[in-house]
């Protein structure tokens, strides 16, 4: 009886937390449908005015494209560098281990404001501000610890005997990594990549420093008017990206289902899997 009571309380708590996580996100949708040029909730009149403005103003599309490019590239570089470093941390031996680890994790600890300013001073002289390369370099620093942490955690749980088995069966270390280790830690790598992508996609503080007329990312575009006025188009952008993520989740679910169906059919005919 006690246990049922505790479970019910737990479920209730989780429901409240879920609402707490979701509500501020969902409120954005009606906000974006308001006809007012102020962010209001609930909206007095519904209109698609701000979506129209997104379409009319090509700078939104440009900044979205710039953000996407930077986020994809920096997530890719983060995954490569972060996975290598995780392999070294979990498997390897190298000197000054604590100091090196501290350097690798430092981007988690240093406030972005400091990073932004420091990097701005350095990059301005190198001509790297307002360039994709500049953004990718900085956002890789910010995203790479997440990849490292995720992949390290994944690597620790990999049964070393599987790698030994692979090498025993004639695969070299590199081949073993790509055929056995990588597929096994793939969920961790993808989780790390997701973190790195989002870190870059949503990053505004260092991006403010790096942005300029030649290159502005989406969060900077959203942030730009804040001291004067928040453009309700920002709510429209958020709603759209929400739509994208929800459809991605649905798509992933669909792909999973289709794969299961194919698997089932394939198991009827032997040796196809080879």
């Amino acid at each position, binding site marked *: 009886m006690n246990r049922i009571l505790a479970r019910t309380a737990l479920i209730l708590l989780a429901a409240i937390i879920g609402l707490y996580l979701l509500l501020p996100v969902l409120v954005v949708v009606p906000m974006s449908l308001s006809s*007012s*040029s*102020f*962010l209001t909730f609930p909206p*007095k009149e519904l209109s698609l005015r701000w979506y129209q403005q997104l379409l*009319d*103003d*090509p*700078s939104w599309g440009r900044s979205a494209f710039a953000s996407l490019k930077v986020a994809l590239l920096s997530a890719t570089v983060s995954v490569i560098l972060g996975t290598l470093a995780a392999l070294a941390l979990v498997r390897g031996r190298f000197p000054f281990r604590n100091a090196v680890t501290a350097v690798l994790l430092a981007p988690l600890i240093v406030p972005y404001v400091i990073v932004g*300013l420091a990097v*701005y*001073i350095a990059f*301005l*002289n190198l*001509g790297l*501000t*307002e360039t994709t390369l500049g953004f990718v370099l900085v956002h890789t620093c910010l995203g790479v610890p997440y990849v490292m942490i995720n992949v390290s955690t994944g690597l620790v749980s990999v049964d070393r005997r599987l790698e030994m088995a692979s090498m025993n069966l004639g695969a070299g270390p590199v081949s073993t990594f790509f055929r056995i280790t990588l597929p096994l830690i793939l969920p961790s790598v993808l989780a790390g990549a997701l973190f790195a992508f989002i870190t870059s996609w949503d990053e505004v503080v260092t991006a*403010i*420093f790096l*942005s*300029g*007329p*030649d290159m*502005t990312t989406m969060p900077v575009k959203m*942030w*730009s*008017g*804040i*001291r*004067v*006025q*928040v*453009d309700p188009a920002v709510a429209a952008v958020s709603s759209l990206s929400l739509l994208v993520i929800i459809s991605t989740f649905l798509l992933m679910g669909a792909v999973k289902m289709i794969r299961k169906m194919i698997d089932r059919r394939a198991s009827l005919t032997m040796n196809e899997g080879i």
Partner: protein
Amino acid sequence: MLALSLSACGGAGTASDEKSLTVTMWGGQAQSAHVASYFTPWAAESGVTIKEDSPTDYAKIETQVNAGKVNWGVVEVEPNFANTACEKGLLEKLPQRVIDAAKAAGVPEAQMGECAIPNLQYTFSIAYNTEVFADKHPTNWAEFFDTKTFPGKRGFWKYATGGLFEAALLADGVPADKLYPLDLPRAFAKLDTIKKDIVWYDTGDQQTQLVASGEAPLVQAWNGRITKAAAEGQAVANDYGQNLISYDQVVIPKGYPNAELAADWMVWFLGNGQAQADDAVASGYGPVSSDAIGLVPEADRKDLAGSEEVSKDSAGLIDYSYWAKNYDSVTEELNNWIAK
């Protein structure tokens, strides 16, 4: 808007770089209005490409100038920064032709700087919620500070240059022409009387939210924001009693390669009252040339800084030369007082 996007796309070519001007302002819809009203027409006339950036960031200006890589051409700043930065050598001194153009346009002497021309004016005035104060609302700062007659929270901008000291001294009976240098102890003493009712805002959005929602039915606000909100049907209004006139300035960071082009634009802008009038209608901020206000349609005029209606009740201009000298120290005092 279309012209802007085309020119911005064309900006990638190196040939057009020689005739491009980068404009940096505070951002948002106000910036869109400014650019559309008084940058794009000039750019079209003179074959220059306009590049836009936002928001203004003083740290970026200093870093760019110190690094000798200046990307920003015309930058919208607060007058106290324009003053300090000009002294520190971060900004280009105005060429004589800009100063002459300003004189010719009748720009108030007080709003000019050695390195800066004003680009718009607005007021710190009393914004009130028309539902909470349907019958009677404060019409001067003494009433604004009177929480007995007008109960409710008061909103102030949390920066030293937000006009709160001036308002406090006016409320305490200091004559408008004897405000500066500010009697800070007296101002803090007056502010102490309503301290528990003060709500601090940071962004322009917050002020309209505060008044419109009734959370703080009285706010010392920027008049343009309140006018816009009222036009959208929100229950807010301005009272211009003892309003304090403020202005933004535009400057050219030192060493900007196309500084001449920027100066060209300044001359064009000061002499083009129509462009300023168009901007005033679109943005809600007042024009700076004396003839421009007359070009604004009657209906929009009464809520613009620089108009007869607003000027007659004004307590005067905020003295940014005072603030240029005292901003840092008063900011520390203010932060300390808030934190107490």
